């Protein structure tokens, strides 16, 4: 896996490069947007790590340039600003993820792995949470390889949850997924569907768990190992 690291602070760039290489990546590290442009034109990278502020320009502008020619390379943006609006701005310009400095190496590696996994995973054909797999093409579910029969409405809800593992999916999103526009939805109907789905999953013994956030929504994630 080849990465392009664009960070102007020399020490930080060297250290992060070394850490990433130890993590199993091949890294091209540059400190200026001009150099970054050359590299991006010359080679294909599996992922790009971009600092927002550089001596010769704004990372966001460089990213806009990149996105005009390349929509698929995942980009993770680094920055010192941590307001929610800054994060949203970065994602709007075309970043796939956003990390605030200082960050732990573990977190950088985890997010890189998630970015690199995406093409097959969350946006793709088979959704996976722990040992639970949902094949969106055949609309079938399996826990540790064993098929699980899931009725239609529960299936739609499960898909919505598994597309965003570890994130809360709001009640209205789930209702949109499970019910057609013209179907009347009883306020407790959704909770009943979730309750049945949760019981079904528990019976399969899967490591994926559905958690309730009362008044907000639900999320699915892999249970922590005891």
């Amino acid at each position, binding site marked *: 896996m080849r990465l392009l690291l664009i960070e102007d602070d020399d020490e930080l760039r060297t250290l992060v490069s070394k*850490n990433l290489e130890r993590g199993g990546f091949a890294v091209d590290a540059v400190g200026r947007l001009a150099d970054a442009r050359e590299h991006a034109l010359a080679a294909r990278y599996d992922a790009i790590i971009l600092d927002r*502020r550089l001596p010769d320009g704004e990372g966001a502008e460089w990213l806009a340039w990149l996105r005009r020619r390349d929509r698929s390379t995942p980009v993770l943006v680094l920055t*010192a600003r941590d307001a929610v609006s800054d994060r949203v701005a970065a994602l709007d310009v075309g970043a796939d993820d956003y990390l605030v400095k200082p960050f732990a*190496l573990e977190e950088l590696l985890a997010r890189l792995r998630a970015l690199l996994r995406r093409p097959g995973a969350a946006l793709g054909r088979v959704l996976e949470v722990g040992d639970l797999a949902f094949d969106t093409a055949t609309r079938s579910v399996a826990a540790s390889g064993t098929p699980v029969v899931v009725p239609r409405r529960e299936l739609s809800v499960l898909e919505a949850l598994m597309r965003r593992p570890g994130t809360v999916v709001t009640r209205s999103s789930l209702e949109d997924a499970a019910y057609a526009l013209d179907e009347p939805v009883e306020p407790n109907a959704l909770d009943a569907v979730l309750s049945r789905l949760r019981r079904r999953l528990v019976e399969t013994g899967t490591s994926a768990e559905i958690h309730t*956030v*009362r*008044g907000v929504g639900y999320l699915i*994630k892999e249970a922590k190992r005891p």
Partner: protein
Amino acid sequence: MSVIPSPDGSGSLAGRLTRRLSVTFAAMLAVATAAFTLVGWFDRNVEAEMAAGQFRIADWVIEEMVGEVLPTVLPLLVATLLVTTVTVRHSLKPLRRLSRTAAEIVPGSGAIRLDEAGVPDEILPLVRAVNTALARLDAAVDQQRRLAENAAHELRTPLAVLRARVDGLAPSPECEELAADLDRMERAIGQILMLARLEGIEMATIRPIDLTVAVRDAAARLAPVAIDRGIALAVLAPDAPVPVDGDPDQIGQALANLVDNALAASSEGDEVEITVSPDARVTVADRGIGLEPGTETQVFERFWRSAASRRPGSGLGLAIVAEIMKQHGGSASAAARPGGGAQFALAFPLRAAQLPATRSTA
């Protein structure tokens, strides 16, 4: 436009002008009426009728007034009033336009300026002075923003270097301690930078929002952390929207700090409850050890930490919450929770007007 002056005496300029002009014209017309009547007196064969013993002044006046003068004067008076009203209103339209624009201005949120086109000469100097002041304010906000960004960058980069170095070391107990120390430093710096930003002149982007939506969104972001710790998060809110003027980012930040504290006070299996009430109050309640009695106001002070607190922290979390509420024109308070634990309440000023879908047309 009101023709009757308002209680504080200033009243409407349009009203004042219309009143004065109308009174003046009415007086002029009254004088003209009297003059015409007098002329009529000299015009008639009054002497002849007096001699014939048939003249009565009252009859004559009435006949003169109703028959000749009034049909001419009254329509004129009405027409005058109408023309005055329309002219005054039309002339003052640029002023109303200016005040609508001025009402939209939030310093630092973009270069909104008062339009100098079509402004009467007498007001032009005022409008220009306002625009200059706005430009200066925008520049000051901009400079402060850049300063804050530089400060953040300068503080965070060396920390990032340190963190990267520690991450690169072979794992050891000393390494763990270094990492923990770094965590503390990072958190403290984050809080200090946030507080500095809040206190700067860069104002929050306050706009009409539904408090319930902002709270639910914040809870959705905070829930995964709570679930990781085995603590449940719940939101209780009314079905109807709760309109307030607020900045969802900052409200989210305030809630994050409160929930952070609540989670730290709770144990696995506990629940943290966030309640939104129709009178625009948000409460975060936990079943932890609760507050030290008597410290309910102190906790919001900067760098204040309870002697009993075991966990590392900068002591700024609640100070930030208080500052955010101040910016919203509201308040933050703490109290013991009936049945055990603590509850923190954010009180927002109520908003009388409607929600984002219908903007107020001033």
